[in-house]
């Protein structure tokens, strides 16, 4: 789960990391009031769950409350990489001496936390990584041992800082690791981490991603989930434990297991079709979930046929068949549905379908065959 900048900063502050004073505003007037309250130069920053907002014009530095109102007017409602801006963070200004980059993420290969640090912070950090990799210090943290004092020193020496500013950076890193562990984050990134002209170390931005699997033990973070921001169908899918992503084609796809669904997408494309979505009902899906999944997939008006590809393991064929039939009955879907059922209890599932086949349901033996059939049906106009 991704946190908005203002939420991420709130989290970092809980762990003792310094940020600028800021106020969230959802209207130009609120932005004006915020700027007035903060006084002086302020930044008006789009709150979106994606990168690249700076380049998209989503950040404006202004000198008066009225300018802040105007900036908010321009930014609110803006579309940044498919995300609509619905809130801005109005943040106090500060005189910056230097910009650094600091993040902690999970290194899948090493199976350890990885600290990345660079004195060349700012928007072009990926370019720095590519063209001048030595400018980025990389440090693995052993998950059982945790962050060690020597590692904090290494980063401080890499920064070339001294005195109180060095201590400020050391404290920031120590606290950032505590935040990373304490909130079960898979990413905590501060870019830029700045040294102010008066020698303080501040997080000027904050990107925090919390592991979804851990949300059961972080109620406070789970509550931050922004329901409005998600696509309504994606949101509905999430609520019943499905993975759903809308795409631009006309063949609705539904399967169990991310790998099989991805492969189904590939095969549909190879058969000349265009997938309308990615929908994984996951392991052990029951009739209820299958029914909801079908409902979500077909609620997309572009969908002309549905390919239902199940290879049971935890998921059982009989449950799937019952779910499918109940969904068709309940919703009266009349789109052509191509079903391919294999694996655990597939026999039973196929039998349930054979006994009750609605006329818009077609069964196929193989995945390739099913894909070809679904593509053909979509091409012929579907409903």
């Amino acid at each position, binding site marked *: 789960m991704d946190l908005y900048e203002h939420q991420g900063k709130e989290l970092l502050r809980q762990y003792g990391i310094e940020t600028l004073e800021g106020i969230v505003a959802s209207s130009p007037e609120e932005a004006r009031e915020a700027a007035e309250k903060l006084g002086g130069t302020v930044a008006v920053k789009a709150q979106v769950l994606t990168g690249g907002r700076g380049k998209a014009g989503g950040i404006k530095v202004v000198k008066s409350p009225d300018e802040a109102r105007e900036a908010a007017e321009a930014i609110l409602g803006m579309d940044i990489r498919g995300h609509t801006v619905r809130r801005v963070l109005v943040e106090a200004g500060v005189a910056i001496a230097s910009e650094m980059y600091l993040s902690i993420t999970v290194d899948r290969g090493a199976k350890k936390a990885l600290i990345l640090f660079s004195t060349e912070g700012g928007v072009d950090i990926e370019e720095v990584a590519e063209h001048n990799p030595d400018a980025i210090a990389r440090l693995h943290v052993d998950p059982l041992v945790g962050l060690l004092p020597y590692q904090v020193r290494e980063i401080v020496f890499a920064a070339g800082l001294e005195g109180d500013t060095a201590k400020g950076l050391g404290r920031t890193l120590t606290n950032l690791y505590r935040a990373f*562990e304490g909130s*079960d984050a898979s990413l905590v990134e501060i870019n830029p981490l700045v040294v102010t002209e008066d020698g303080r170390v501040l997080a000027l931005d904050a990107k925090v991603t919390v592991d979804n699997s851990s949300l059961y033990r972080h109620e406070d973070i789970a509550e931050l989930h922004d329901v409005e921001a998600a696509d309504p169908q994606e949101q509905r899918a999430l609520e019943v434990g499905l993975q759903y992503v809308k795409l631009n084609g006309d063949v609705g796809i539904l399967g169990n297991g991310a790998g099989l669904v991805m492969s189904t997408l590939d095969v549909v494309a*190879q058969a000349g079709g265009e997938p309308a979505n990615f929908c994984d009902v996951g392991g052990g899906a029951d009739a209820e979930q299958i029914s909801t999944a079908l409902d979500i997939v077909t609620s997309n008006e572009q969908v002309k046929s549905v390919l239902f590809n199940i290879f049971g393991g935890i998921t059982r064929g009989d449950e799937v068949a019952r779910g499918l039939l109940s969904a068709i009955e309940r919703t009266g879907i009349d789109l052509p549905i191509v079903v391919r059922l*294999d694996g655990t209890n597939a026999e039973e599932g196929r039998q349930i379908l054979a006994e009750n086949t609605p006329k818009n349901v077609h069964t196929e033996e193989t995945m390739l065959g099913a894909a070809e059939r679904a593509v053909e049906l979509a091409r012929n106009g579907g409903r």
Partner: protein
Amino acid sequence: MAILVDDGTRLLVQGITGREGRFHTGRMIESETKVVAGVTPGKGGGDFEGVPIFDTVHEAARETGANASVIFVPPPFAADAIFESLDSGLSTVCCITEGVPVHDMLKVSDYIKMTEATLIGPNCPGVLSPGKSNVSIMPGDIFLPGNVGVVSRSGTLTYQVVNELTQRGIGQSTAVGIGGDPIIGTDFIEILKKFEADPETGCAVMIGEIGGNAEQLAAEYVQREMQTPVVAYIAGFTAPEGKTMGHAGAIVSGGESTAEAKSEALRRAGIRAATNPSEVAELVAEALGKA
């Protein structure tokens, strides 16, 4: 032979009395797996389909000589269940549970370095050596004993590929679903090493996905060390682009996590790379000289 599980596997089921535990224990017994014990804290003394249930893994292992376990407990308790298995001296532990917190797995996979055990998963279908032992949730009836080793990050896609192999009359030595989570107990390379060392495995199939760079690392290993022919398949050519915040991910992986990039890397390493599950079976047949 076979790898990880075989005739000598004496299996213990952690979470045997839960819905999934009961269902799959029944199926594993049907596949003639020697399920010797179940563990559910507080239900010790009972039994499930003749399998004695214990309160703790230590006790179960001591009383029954179990040497492997499969875990069906809910995510908040999965890491603890893995530690319990490891500390009881079991040599193969398969964690089926989906949704185990990443930070829990970081600790587990660090601890495992101090043991001799192999952890498969979590969020995986398990391990199956056809005709010998089924320590998995994989549908046993699609398998055929043979000499193809299958290793996969994806569950259902594994079944699909195995099914295609079996339909062509090509059997499997062992199929291993290593799991698709960010942190897993055992990676491609460690399984490929075991296949390379297994005289019964004549060809290995590696099934990957988009994300991370495990397939590239495996390709390097295959090119450098393996004699056994390898067929690979990466799913996700048309997958929606993942949304990522921040730069750290891109900096770590170097941005090469698409199916195209992976397949390209595989081909450069001299590995036969298929574009769909059926083609996997064709390429395996070719590699085995059965085409």
